């Protein structure tokens, strides 16, 4: 399975990813203007990855218990 990892330390809260995500996984918090990531909503479509210039999102492939990749 592929999963998106959001690195909140690298994130500068520009919101460029929000403009690409049609699943509501990335959103701008109205109070603070900060970007938030809701992992449960993410479909791992990867559309936000090329949009992030700050290296704050990456896709990982999770491994099964026996060590084989399950893509």
């Amino acid at each position, binding site marked *: 399975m592929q999963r998106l990892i959001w690195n909140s330390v690298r994130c500068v809260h520009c*919101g*460029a990813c929000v403009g690409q995500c049609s699943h509501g996984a990335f959103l701008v918090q109205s109070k603070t203007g900060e970007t938030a990531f809701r992992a449960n909503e993410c479909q791992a479509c990867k559309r936000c990855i090329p949009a992030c*210039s700050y290296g704050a999102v990456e896709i990982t492939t999770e491994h099964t218990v026996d060590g084989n990749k399950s893509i």
Partner: protein
Amino acid sequence: MKTYQEINEKIRKKMAVVVTAEEMISIVDESGPRKAAQKIDVVTTGTFGPMCSSGAILSTGHTTPRMKIQKAWLNGVPAYSGIAAVDLYIGATEIPDDDPANEVFPGRFEYGGGHVIEDLVRGNDVVLEAKAYGTDCYPKKELETLVNLKDLNDAVLWNPRNAYQNYNVAVNVGSSRPIYTYLGVLQPRMANANYCSAGQLSPLLNDPHYRTIGIGTRIFLGGGVGYVSFAGTQHDPGGARTGGGVPTGGAGTLALTGDLKGMNADYLRGVSITGYGVSLAVGVGVPIPILDEEIARQTAVSDREIFAPVVDYSHDYWNNSGEPLASVTYEELRSGQIEIVGKKIKTAALSSHVKARQIASTLKNWIAAGTFALGEPVENLPGAESGRSMKLLAERKPCPGSVGSTREGGGTR
């Protein structure tokens, strides 16, 4: 009317009243510009986003034996060395010689000049490789060493063009695939629109006629202290403006300089723009002294009064053609959606409003604490009255003897 000297005296005594450009909006709204000008001494601005025309001058110290560097690389990224023996300029958008760039489209551009600058500011060792032809006074021909910011004799951020007064909003009208631009990824059929400005917090939008921001203005630069050193390249003050004087397109820019050793990687970040290249995100904050009522009024400009042109990057931008598709306010842009010819389009920024706010409030704290005095410009930036405007390059084919040159043969061969 106040003077720089009076305001600096109040700063020295920690009595200056300082607010951010966002706070100034409601102050002027409630008390009017005249009272606000009496009450407020300084308004701080801030912006943070990719600013390609950036770089750093590094003076490494002489090797033994001495070397007149002819070609140099920092972590594999070429640095310009046609200056003097051991002075180098690392440009933010430079990429390693072996980067595949856009050969595998869209290129990822994982590392480049902007990242070298971030690594230096983070205190990381950086590999310096250099070559030279060797002279009687500089015989060394090859160099490979680690360098660290703290050991360099000089390291100065030297940015020819930062802090654009205003900027385009980019959309993709005509291409059936996503296009990869310096304003980010633009999906087909205007599915999204990207912008890059701090709007009401942006330095030059709060001083639209450059009354206080000029050569010598002391500023927040990359987390440290810097200066406005000149009008930025492509400074273009003569474009259209609103009734309030706010430019409705690019307009002014700033050349900025500051000691890299005092800067902070939170406000200087290497960026990788997919399909486009690398750059440096720079944090800039400019203090505006409230010398009179007019300046108070201008620093209260709000997102709803600032307009940006929507431009088609699938054709019109690169072809220098067409007219903007629409003009939208930063209030609309920041709401997450704009409407163009009946179509609702999702908006997003490449600049960070969160960081811009942090910068304006950090600068406010420095001034209120008496540690940051205002620099009075020694010269103003050219305004609309200068007649200065930007031209396109008229390409002319060179032929032997057609140009005068100090190079034998007329500069062509």
